[in-house]
């Protein structure tokens, strides 16, 4: 059975989404063992493969270089940072830029604000999106279809269009300049995305599962909580990562809705430009510190993330 094999290959990452064509799906184990006798688009001839590897190496260097240059620059001395002509590697490796950046007032607090805002927003998105997506996919009502359409249309709204009215709403609710206000704003971005992702995950859960549970005397809510949720826990993790990243990297709402107290790091990075003249060294150091945790997270959880990104887009 082809489908069964797919599920097994997809295995670890997302057992609940058998239709997801993530990377390892198409390459069967037997095919790999034979090696030479490749199928479809995979190149077989040795010369062709060497050429392709060279191309790939060139692409990776071009693609990876900008961020490496940011890292190298962050280790230069503040003067070398803006030397003319610039050098690629630091003439002298130092942590001065890091000390300057992290020692500046407001920077450590902005990290706490970023973490706080992202966590609140992630939890809020999941709490709202999981039941909603379940209601949409399991019962297929007219209201559900209208709702998922409306949620998708929400995704098209330019943040700049609702940012200002939203900011004044928060102010009149007494939430001005708080992580709560900003995380609510971030949830307007991540909630539609979360509903969309979770719908795809629920779609893959066989209906018999809760039917069996309800026959055994579970209520519908009980079946959702005790039977369905554990099955889609991988999908919930993917959705959580996306909601977290959406908030962690967001800038426009943060710029409009925060002042001193709840400023997140992206706003602080941008402010380096104006407040303190052009302090490139500190900016690169802070940008590196802010980006590296999420890059590492990506590398650790890459299979789940790939599954989440391609879901929906490639379905059917």
């Amino acid at each position, binding site marked *: 059975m082809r489908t069964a094999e797919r599920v097994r290959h997809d295995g670890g990452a997302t057992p609940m989404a058998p239709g997801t*064509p993530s990377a*390892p799906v*198409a*390459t069967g184990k037997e095919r*790999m063992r034979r090696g030479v006798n490749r*199928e*479809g*688009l*995979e*190149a077989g001839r040795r010369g062709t*493969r060497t050429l392709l590897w060279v191309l*790939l190496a060139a*692409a*990776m260097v071009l*693609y*990876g270089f*900008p961020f490496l*240059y940011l890292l190298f620059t962050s280790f230069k001395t503040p003067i070398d940072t803006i030397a*003319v*002509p610039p050098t690629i590697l630091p003439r002298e490796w130092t942590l001065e830029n890091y000390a300057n950046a992290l020692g500046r007032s407001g920077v450590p607090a902005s990290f706490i604000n970023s973490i706080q805002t992202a966590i609140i927003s992630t939890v809020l998105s999941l*709490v709202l999106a999981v*039941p*909603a997506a379940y*209601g*949409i996919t399991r*019962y297929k*009502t007219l209201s*559900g279809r209208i*709702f998922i*359409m*409306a949620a998708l*249309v929400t995704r*098209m709204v*330019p*943040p700049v269009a*609702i940012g*200002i*009215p*939203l900011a004044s*709403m928060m102010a009149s609710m007494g939430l001005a300049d708080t992580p709560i206000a900003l995380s609510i*704003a971030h949830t307007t971005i991540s909630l*539609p995305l979360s509903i969309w992702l979770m*719908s795809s995950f629920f779609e893959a859960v066989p209906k018999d599962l809760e039917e069996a549970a309800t026959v055994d005397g579970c209520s*519908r809510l009980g079946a959702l909580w005790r039977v369905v949720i554990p099955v889609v826990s991988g999908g919930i993790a993917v959705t959580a990562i996306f909601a977290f990243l959406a908030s*962690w990297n967001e*800038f*426009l709402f943060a710029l409009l809705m925060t002042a001193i107290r709840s400023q997140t790091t*992206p706003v602080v*990075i941008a402010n380096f430009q104006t407040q303190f003249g052009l302090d490139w060294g500190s900016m*690169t150091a802070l*940008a590196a510190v*802010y980006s590296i945790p999420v*890059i590492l997270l*990506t*590398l650790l959880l890459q299979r789940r993330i*790939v599954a989440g*990104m391609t879901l929906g*887009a*490639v*379905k059917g």
Partner: protein
Amino acid sequence: MRISDRRFALFLMTPAALFLAVFVAFPLFRLVADSFFKISPIAGGSREFVGLDNYVRAFASEAFTGAGWRTLAYTLVVVTLEFALGLGMALLFTMLGKSSQIWRTVFMYPLMIAPIVAGLLWKFLMIDNFGLIGTLLHQAGILSDPNQIGWLSDPGIVLYSVAVPDIWLTTSFMCLVLFAGLQNIPGDLIEAARLDGARAPALLFRIILPLLRPVIAVALVVRGIDAARAFDTILIQTNGGPQSASETMSLLIYRTMIRFGDPGLASAMGTLYLLAMLAVAFVAVSTIWRPGKDN
């Protein structure tokens, strides 16, 4: 006492629906309402109904029509380039097969970088005087002077320079989606075409691209909408300058609201911008996306 399935579904959806109604629909309503007023930017300032005056002013201003065209050009450039690059990378990864898996992961890393950081990074590479790109091109003998091309200071090219970080950030997304699509093409089909003597270009244009059409459509729509809303990368690189040459719609609305303190006019621009986006979204969703339908 069991409520009907329909009620139960509604009960599950209500919290999310209420949230979106309060925090998205209501601000949108405020935006549209504000567009008919002349509003003083001072808190508690005057508010005077002016009918369609703000819309007339928007269409009459060169800043608005200019920003509209620039947004369109920016979106086309970003989406076209990242589609071409993303497809190239996806084909490369597919042709290399499983052995390229680790590089596929590494290739994804820009997706996790904040747009503000990406904008900063590329500004640092392209900036006059100590920008590395000009220097490297000079050292390679391509430019006679490192500052010959003012990537971010020449109004003629700045709109394309500010698009670079956006392309760099999201080519990975294109690649990922197209790669997944490519894995769904049955190998037999390619083999059969090869046996029939199809060469690489024919294979690409007659078989692969037509089979990928639905995936391509979705990827282009998703990215097109995102690119049309670009804000962070442009703000940090040029703040819309020089001489508004890189001022797209998001930036113009932001500046009209914050810098020029004209909420009424900014709301009218925001409303028009939103209507244009919704029109595109509506056409896209109804023709290709069709979420919630069984496949």
